[in-house]
């Protein structure tokens, strides 16, 4: 089963000018539990997905109050710099859809 079938919200957005943060939110507690326990979404898998070294994953947390998995990537250059795509960081999430969870 893919992440897109389990999560109710998958989004990305700037967190300050140097980072893009990703929120994967689950409405269904069971889907949240299954995803977290699968371990399929982790620092290494998201680094590999976005073709980054592990060090560029600035944080990775499971945020229980929102039934969410949240991680943050460091940009190569600050948001809005010449050549830097997606100044709001708002369209970086779709590659997460196809992560195989189980």
């Amino acid at each position, binding site marked *: 089963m893919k992440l897109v079938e389990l999560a109710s919200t998958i989004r990305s*957005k700037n967190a*300050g000018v140097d980072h893009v943060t990703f929120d994967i939110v689950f409405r269904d507690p069971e889907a949240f539990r299954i995803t977290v326990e699968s371990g399929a979404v982790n620092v290494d898998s998201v680094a590999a997905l976005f073709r980054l070294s592990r060090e560029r994953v600035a944080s990775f*947390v499971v945020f229980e109050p*929102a039934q*969410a998995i949240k991680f943050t990537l460091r940009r190569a*250059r600050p948001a809005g*710099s010449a050549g830097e*795509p*997606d*100044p709001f960081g708002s369209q970086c999430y779709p590659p997460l859809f196809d992560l195989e969870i189980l």
Partner: protein
Amino acid sequence: MSPTGHLGFTPIEKDSFAAGVAARPDAIVADSGSADIGPRPLGADLGHSPEDWQRRDLELCLLGARELNIPLVIGSASDTGTDRGVDRYVEMITDLSVTHGLAPFTLAAIRSEINLNVLASLLGDGVTIAGLDGRADADADTIARTDHAVAVMGVEPIAAAIEGGADVVICGRSSDSAIFAAVAEARGGLPRASALLAGKLLECASFCAEPFMGKETVIGDVDAEGVTVYPMHPAQRCTPASVASHAMYERIDPFSERIPGGHLDLRNVSYVQVDERSTRVTGASWVASDGYGVKIEGSGKVGERAIAIMGIRDPYTLSRLDEVLSWSRMKLAERFGSPDQRGYQVFFHVYGRDGVMGPWEPNPVVSGHEVGIVVEAVAATPKAAEDVCALASRNLFYARLPDVKGTAGGASFFSDEVLLALPAYEWTLNHVVVFDEPGARAKAGGLFRTDRTVVATSETSRR
């Protein structure tokens, strides 16, 4: 009451605003700032949102607040919170009070732009301007690359203005959550933890409710233990899921909200549905820091910028796209020298391959029948940027591939013109200065300068 997450960016929705005023809140608070708009508005010190939208949002807020005789606090005036932004909002508030014949009220303006000489002298005094988010500490070169900088104010200067009798406070660059906390502390006498929690939850207005809607008013009832939030749009609800989901929005760490003087610890927060449309949040704690850390934002101009828009349709050319781009770069170097030597930059944004995500794209291949390429050039002068852009885009047209069938042009121009774009800027400062010697708060306070004025419809007198 929070009517918008970014005053002036798109207009506040009137109906839920009116419902909010009818609920008789104790204050109206609206943030007008954002770093999402990129580094240019700060670096060039220009407004970003249309002035008539800003004026119209300010008008709604001012009339609502004066009708109820409650404080109005506006954060990060005119997107960036520079002195220009504060001055402009003060003028608009003054004009609006005349237009509407409002009874006299006290207006406080808190300026927080930081002169580059002040930053340089801090460095000279051995003060560390520490890099945030993995950045190196600032040095003289960092300051030299900066055109404008602002210090981000916390609760103290805003609360002091309200305690000093201000009815309307226009803030320079300010923490989104602190502008709410200041009112809850100064008017409600509430502790920092719940005051700041209120700000954290309310700063983007209806983003803490569901379903998703922007620019709709929400209200938070704040007490010593926590906050109860509820929306003013009849079709929205504040649920534990919507409120908790907002609590992590646009932040790296969902368990901590840092402002000058400490941070809000959100690790033990609980979210409870209290009725169909309200959620109560409790359990936050305030952790004071030893020093008083003030965040500094800065932006500087990198160069002039030009763009051209191109398209490629030939499947053979698309299969060898990297060779086409390399050809163009090679011709640029031949004509102008290498980018490093000659101080120009060129970027090919290939929409249809990796134009949206750049190097993060997991699947950087052309899978459709065409691509669009935005050629972006940056150089010292408009003419140089234009020339680099023209040569780069025309060499997509003239690129040489061994077996191409079409021998009358390898790319399609959107039109054979180079478009002069607005200059390129970059965020030079995302740093913090920690004042940790005795009297730190007073010294930090020098960064935030408050003026009070009585606004009267017939005359404006300065106290």
